[in-house]
């Protein structure tokens, strides 16, 4: 870990917020992708069975 001196709080906060926001965006994108994929598969099965 580099010595961030008196700016440690500012630098770590900037990186922390960035990682948090990007992680949230990636998680939401993957979760919605999985959900829609599952729903579409179910709808296509219903279509093919009747």
């Amino acid at each position, binding site marked *: *870990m*580099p*010595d*961030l*001196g*008196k*700016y*440690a709080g*500012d*630098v770590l*906060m*900037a*990186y922390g*917020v*960035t990682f948090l*926001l*990007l992680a*949230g*965006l*990636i998680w*939401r*994108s*993957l979760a*919605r*992708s999985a959900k*829609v*994929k599952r*729903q*579409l598969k179910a*709808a*296509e099965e*219903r*279509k093919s069975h009747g």
Partner: protein
Amino acid sequence: MAINWNAFWEWANPRKFMWWTDRALPVIAILAAVIFVIGLVWGFFLTPDDYRQGATVKIFYIHVPSAMMAINIWAMMLVASLIWIVRRHHVSALAAKSAAAIGMTMTLIALITGAVWGKPMWGTYWEWDPRLTSFLILLLFYIGYMALWEAIEDPDTAADLTSALCLVGSVFALLSRYAVLFWNQGLHQGASLSLDAEENVADVYWYPALVAIAGFVLLFVALVLLRTRTEIRARRLHALEMRERVKNA
């Protein structure tokens, strides 16, 4: 050499798009993760403190790439919206819709990291400076754009209206980029990175910054492909559900 535009449109056909992105997406995602980590590890751990800004210079590796992406993602949405308006190409409208949440996140990161960086350097988190203000307006445009997509049920009408909003918002995206040149006032300095070597930061900061920017760009490409694939599936799902409803009525 003449460009074969027909081949281009063929690759953007929904079925073909799903086929090639299914193969390309894992590769792009892995590449994005690797380049992103290299850029930030290099910038955070392996660069010296700046003689004026001290350790806060490390915020540069997240602030500059996110700010660049915030503006360029809106530019990408503008191109996609124009394609929708001119050619009624559904994948382009869905790609613009998919990019908006990523652009909003990048704008938010740029604003927050800028504020955190601004406090020790300028003595304030916020100032109604031309660039900061135009970025805040850009964030509001992103939120409005996303809200408009959610508010309208018919996807084609939503694509029409959001495309119009995207054209209007482009003025502010452009202002965000050139605000410091239009108004020679405020706290924010001009572009940190430019093709003019005299204006660039020192190489020791410049090279890791380029890698970090490449990481952000690849992350955007991976996410926009993933989200566009989801939107194409959601549209197909919507069509199937409508058909079911008509059949059961």
